[in-house]
């Protein structure tokens, strides 16, 4: 399971946060932009009218018999891709990661952000021909918020009581919250909160509102989807059929792209992307800074209990060298903070420099000169093993010995993960509020750095309660400053998401949220 490093799409709530609550303390009623208005097909030739028809073959990394059609339990990336094709969410991310309406038309809250009303788009059709109603949305949200259903989206909705999700009228849903949440649309834009039809118990014959309908599914082999003519968007989808093929061997998948047994592949391997000729039949799609590469220090485990040691470790990482060696032109350095294109990213904090001498003196002051540490690593994600190796080399400059504690790739996120003093991770783009709830709040399920700080929790909880965008930004910046000064993350770089495609494929997009434009094939056509 080396492929899926993370489980949540993310993005930034640029539109939602600014526009949604622009009206401030009055009953906030914000209409956010629509995904269609913002999408930019990047592989379409100008002025060409899209051609209808054809079958697009996408090759992706499969998960064998464990693959599923259930939108409630998506772990393999190939399952996530299928879900994006078949289903939709109330809110989603645009190509830049901003939160936009998908099935919602409008969201508003009371002044304390404890009651939210979500109006649905009228006239949305399910694949079976029926119309989307508030009952469907209530059913889906309750299904996910009910613990016993084991839905992967449960972590996003665990704070909502199923009974507090109600239907107001055929197209309006009301959600009551025990704790105020000014960013509810951002939380439920997560890629695990999909809308299914009221009463759905089995997901074997998918009935969604997405641009393609279900035709067939063979776990670990292939699945086929056909154009949904009732899709509400003008023009697309153009393809007659979309075929998603599972591969278990990466070399075979590359060979298949090279010989055009498949037309498109997600996650094109970086080492090969660096040398791919720019003029050939196979081209690359690039989503800049889509993937965050991290190392984490547990702040409650030696030697990292002393903040001077944490600072020293951050200073002795030569980020530019890591990026140059591992990512080449497909990445940039990081500043120990998540998600630089979030509007509330603390851009005013200075870029941390490479300074082994300063690191040395900090370690001396902490009495930890020539300290020995092992880093937990595996070939479990982009640049992981490589960066651990380079970091161990760089650490010598500061007199620190870093040894590699290497485990098999499919075992990385099991027993030792979340328990080691120094480890590595990777996260795809998601809003700061979601990222913090995932890894940095005291209750975070993936608290890699063991960061349990009441002052930090206060700042983030206050931010989540604050409807005023300006005040809220200040709170987010304060929280990030705390992390920059004392946190346990070494966020050394951001990697582009890269996909490969044949030049005959047009209308593919790139999105920071996920590969292949977050699997949006609505505007894709073949020449």
């Amino acid at each position, binding site marked *: *399971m080396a492929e*899926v*490093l*993370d*489980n949540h799409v993310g993005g930034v709530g640029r539109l939602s946060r600014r526009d949604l609550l622009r009206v401030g303390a009055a009953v906030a009623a914000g209409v956010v932009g629509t995904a269609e208005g913002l999408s930019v097909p990047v592989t379409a030739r100008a002025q060409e009218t899209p051609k209808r028809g054809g079958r697009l073959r996408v090759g992706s990394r*499969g*998960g*064998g*018999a*464990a693959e*599923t059609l259930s939108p409630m*339990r998506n*772990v*393999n990336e190939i399952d996530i891709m299928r879900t994006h094709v078949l289903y939709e969410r109330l809110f989603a991310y645009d190509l830049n990661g901003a939160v936009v309406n998908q099935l919602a038309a409008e969201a508003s809250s009371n002044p304390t952000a404890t009651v939210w009303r979500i109006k649905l788009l009228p006239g949305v059709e399910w694949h079976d021909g029926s119309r989307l109603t508030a009952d469907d949305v209530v059913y889906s949200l309750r299904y996910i918020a009910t*613990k*016993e259903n*084991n839905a*992967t989206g*449960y*972590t996003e909705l665990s704070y909502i009581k199923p009974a507090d999700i109600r239907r107001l009228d055929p197209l309006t849903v009301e959600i009551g919250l025990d704790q105020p949440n000014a960013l509810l649309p951002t939380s439920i834009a997560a890629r695990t909160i999909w809308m299914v039809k009221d009463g759905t118990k089995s997901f074997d014959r998918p009935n969604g509102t997405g641009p393609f309908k279900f035709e*067939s599914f*063979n*776990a*670990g*082999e*292939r699945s086929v989807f056909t154009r949904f003519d009732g899709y509400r968007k003008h023009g697309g989808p153009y393809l007659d059929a979309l075929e998603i*093929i599972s*591969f*278990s*061997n990466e*070399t*075979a*998948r590359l*060979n*298949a792209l*090279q*010989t055009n*047994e498949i037309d498109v592949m997600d996650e094109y391997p970086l080492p090969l992307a660096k040398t791919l000729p720019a003029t050939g039949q196979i081209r690359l799609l690039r989503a800049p800074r889509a993937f965050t590469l991290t190392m984490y220090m547990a702040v409650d485990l030696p030697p990292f209990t002393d903040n001077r040691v944490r600072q020293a470790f951050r200073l002795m990482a030569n980020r530019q060298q890591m990026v140059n060696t591992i990512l080449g032109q497909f990445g940039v350095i990081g500043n120990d903070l998540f998600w630089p294109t979030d509007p509330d990213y603390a851009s005013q904090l200075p870029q941390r420099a490479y300074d082994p001498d300063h690191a040395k003196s900090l370690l001396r002051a902490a009495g930890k000169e020539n300290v020995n540490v092992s880093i937990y690593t595996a070939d479990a994600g982009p640049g992981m093993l490589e960066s651990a190796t380079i970091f161990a080399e760089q650490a010598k400059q500061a007199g620190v010995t870093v040894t590699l504690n290497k485990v098999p790739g*499919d*075992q990385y*996120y*099991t*027993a030792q993960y979340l328990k080691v003093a120094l480890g590595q991770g990777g996260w795809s783009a998601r809003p700061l509020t979601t990222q913090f709830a995932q890894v940095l709040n005291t209750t975070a*399920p*993936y608290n890699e750095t063991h960061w349990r700080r009441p002052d930090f929790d206060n700042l983030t909880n206050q931010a989540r309660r604050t409807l005023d965008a300006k005040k809220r930004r200040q709170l987010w910046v304060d929280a990030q400053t705390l992390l920059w000064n004392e946190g346990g993350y070494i966020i050394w770089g951001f990697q582009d998401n890269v996909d490969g495609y044949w030049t005959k494929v047009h209308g593919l997009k790139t999105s920071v949220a996920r590969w292949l434009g977050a699997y949006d094939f609505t505007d894709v056509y073949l020449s």
Partner: protein
Amino acid sequence: MSPLLREIVLRLGAGVFTLVAASALIYLGVSALPGDAATAALGKDATPDLVAGLRKQFGLDRPVLERYGGWLSGFLRGNLGYSLPTGVPVTNVIRDKVWNTVVLAGVTMALLVPLAIVLGAVSALRPDGTVDQSTAALTLTLIATPQFVIGAILAVVFAVWLKWLPAVSLIDPSRPLISRPSILVLPVLTLLASALAQSVRMIRATMIEVLELPYIEAARLNGIAEWRLLLRHALPNIVAPAIQVLAYNVPWLLGGVVIVESVFEYRGVGLTLITAVQSRDLPTVEALAMLTTVAIVATSLCADMTVILLNPRLRRRA
């Protein structure tokens, strides 16, 4: 009870014992691997809550011996159980895959037998002659090259460069396998390359031994033509060893299938086994392992019986 029948019963008993022992070893072995079906199914989503819920749903909260006992009693009653991550009956998961592998292995065997005998016999005719030397060079190279390397080279040459054959052997489940025979060519060639090399070497050695026996010498002195000598007098005497050699190839072939299916994405038993181990899907792993064990025990039994029946001396004693 005739001695032959007794031999069969004994061998069958040993086969059943092997089967049970193998099933226990595999069950405990896979259980001992770090991670289980619940953590594998959840990946990085594995929060303690979700893992506990899923473990309960999969029945993984019971002790491993109890689970093995449950599986074994089901297996003995002909129930292969349910695939862990999905709950689909294992029979449904593996049915098509078994057929795909039978086709792959069958085509390989059908080419292997005549080719091995012809090449082995021709090489033995003039040991160290040109034919023998070049066959030896080729077969020794192939034996020394790992299968996945042979597969990768064949894919690059015939698919990527020459574009004669597909680089991956994807099977469309909605169409019969035979409708696209071209996808079989590279996997079969890869399997054949190493299997053939081994068999040719062994048949050549046996043939040389036979050709040096006194009765061949006598026949040659009587002026019998060399080709007639080979076909009529020597060949019948290598049938028994040849059957042993080819039977010996079956377990080897089944092992090679795992590698070849992975290299070419051929959806058969081997590829299914790999993903089943990855997802800690014990019922599927067990079913495939039992199937493979049965195939190996059965072929070796059949081969031995055929050898006994073909040899008049052994037959009489039996």
